[in-house]
């Protein structure tokens, strides 16, 4: 070991241990999930009291609810981001709004679940359903998109922006033709992460989307997702093969979240590569 580099060696050791612990979670899940794996799990309905149940409706619910929630919250959140970066007057209340949004970015999911439960389910009489769950996910996602979007947009170099305006482009043209394309790779990256976060969300959905599935998909049909099923089966499942069902559900879920993050990162890297920006030395 080189003299005066003790802490470097320590940090390398810590990194190995830390990664080993976190990977332990994934490897154990893979091992238990693959034990007794059968592809029919992906196409069958769950069974409450018998072995061999599947997760087909949960899979459909997860993907559809996350997509619907993103379809609502991503454009609205980005609109807020654009307004905050390019249109907001330099007023004190705008600063406050930003701060409040940053605060709400870390709102506990259970609190969102509680509010949707009290307003939609109790107040409006909506059932525990795909619809209630989707709204909960969208509410959870909105401040995150607005804040992260604004961060990404504000990192587009100011001279690009001014150059475009100086050439006679209107503000909105600048946004569409310059800012969003320039920020696209970073935005795709964020989208992948937000997809994964919503797909893995549990606390906000237990009492909004519910812990059951319906006979068919529908806005007001029960909307249990993979994450909720994973939680429910592991803590309260009564089927004989609950261990296998839980681990298999978890494995599918983790595959989806990792796929979303990696897919988005690869896509973003490809766009950057096409633009001739190599992966930076530090990246």
């Amino acid at each position: 070991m080189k003299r005066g580099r003790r802490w470097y060696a320590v940090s390398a050791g810590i990194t190995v241990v830390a990664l080993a612990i976190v990977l332990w979670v994934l490897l154990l899940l893979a091992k238990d999930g693959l034990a007794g794996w059968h592809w029919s799990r992906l196409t069958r309905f769950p069974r409450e009291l018998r072995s061999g149940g599947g997760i087909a409706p949960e899979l459909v619910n997860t993907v559809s609810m996350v997509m619907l929630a993103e379809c609502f919250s991503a454009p609205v959140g980005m609109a807020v981001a654009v307004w905050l970066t390019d249109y907001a007057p330099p007023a004190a209340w705008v600063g406050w709004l930003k701060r409040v949004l940053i605060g709400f970015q870390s709102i506990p999911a259970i609190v969102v679940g509680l509010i949707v439960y009290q307003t939609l389910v109790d107040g409006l009489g909506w059932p525990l359903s795909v619809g209630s769950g989707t709204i909960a996910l969208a509410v959870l996602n909105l401040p995150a998109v607005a804040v992260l979007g604004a961060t990404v947009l504000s990192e587009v170099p100011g001279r690009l922006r001014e150059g475009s305006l100086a050439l006679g482009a209107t503000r909105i043209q600048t946004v569409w033709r310059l800012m969003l394309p320039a920020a696209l790779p970073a935005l795709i990256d964020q989208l992948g992460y937000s997809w994964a976060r919503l797909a893995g969300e549990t606390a906000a959905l237990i009492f909004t989307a519910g812990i059951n599935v319906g006979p068919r998909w529908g806005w007001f049909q029960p909307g249990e997702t993979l994450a909720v099923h994973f939680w429910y089966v592991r803590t309260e499942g009564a089927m004989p093969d609950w261990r296998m069902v839980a681990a298999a559900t978890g494995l599918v879920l983790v595959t989806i979240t990792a796929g979303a993050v990696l897919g988005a990162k690869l896509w973003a890297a490809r766009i950057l590569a096409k633009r001739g920006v190599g992966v930076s030395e530090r990246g």
Partner: protein
Amino acid sequence: MERQALNGWIERWQARLLWAATLLVAMLVLAITLVLAVGATRFLQSRGWRLGVLLGANWNPLAGHFEIGLFIVDTIIVTALAMAMTLPFGLGVAVFGAYVASSWERTALRWLLTVLAAVPSVAMGWWGLAVVVPGLRRIGGGPGFSLLAAGAVLAVMLLPTFGLLALEVLDKVPEDWHQASLALGASEDQNLLQMALRVSLPGLKTAFLTAVARAMGETVAVQMVIGGAVYGFHGMLGPGATLTTQILTDMAILPLGHPAHGVLDLMAVILLAGLTLLTIWAQRGDERP
């Protein structure tokens, strides 16, 4: 001429739409705050505004006792345990990734951490049930379901996020500063401890508080391993319940529409108040010159 008019019209309407979206989100935030405030107020009113409910530990809804002090204390303990465990590991990962790793190791580490940071918390809870709870039962006796188990599960859950955030902070220390420090005869260790970590403190503080906020707000991963004990404090190796886990447990049990349901809003308000303080603290003095 006509084209210009059309462009102007589009421009105006798009600007209005952006403003409408902002208004919508602002209203949403306001509505959330209001719903919670109304629920919490109704509850406190039904208790005759006795703020002792915040301090006491007598939680027995059937008997009409709604004191939430225990949940506050358990939330703080679990969060502190988690951060104490995740801090050294996260810093180690960050130092390695920012200063020690070769170029490809750094890239691989970043990608790996990003994927791990996106692992759903329920998977961490599952691992806690499979590994941590039985392990603690064997080592420490008792039920295994415990504050310590919750802290450990949270620590593992937060590690990739905190490590990644801290790595970005350390990576932002300008190369000039490293060279200036080394050129004065600093060893790598001295450069790390007396320059790099010191100048990164504000950023590391923000990263740390972001992780604290996630720890405080996490629900299922904690709920799966904490044991849900609401009567009294049982020590680190004993079960407990936090604000978030208790909201989850009682959301469907406390009768909707009854003022008692508002105790959950009060718990949410307390959580949000704590998180607000964290956010303010995190933003204070974080602007690097």
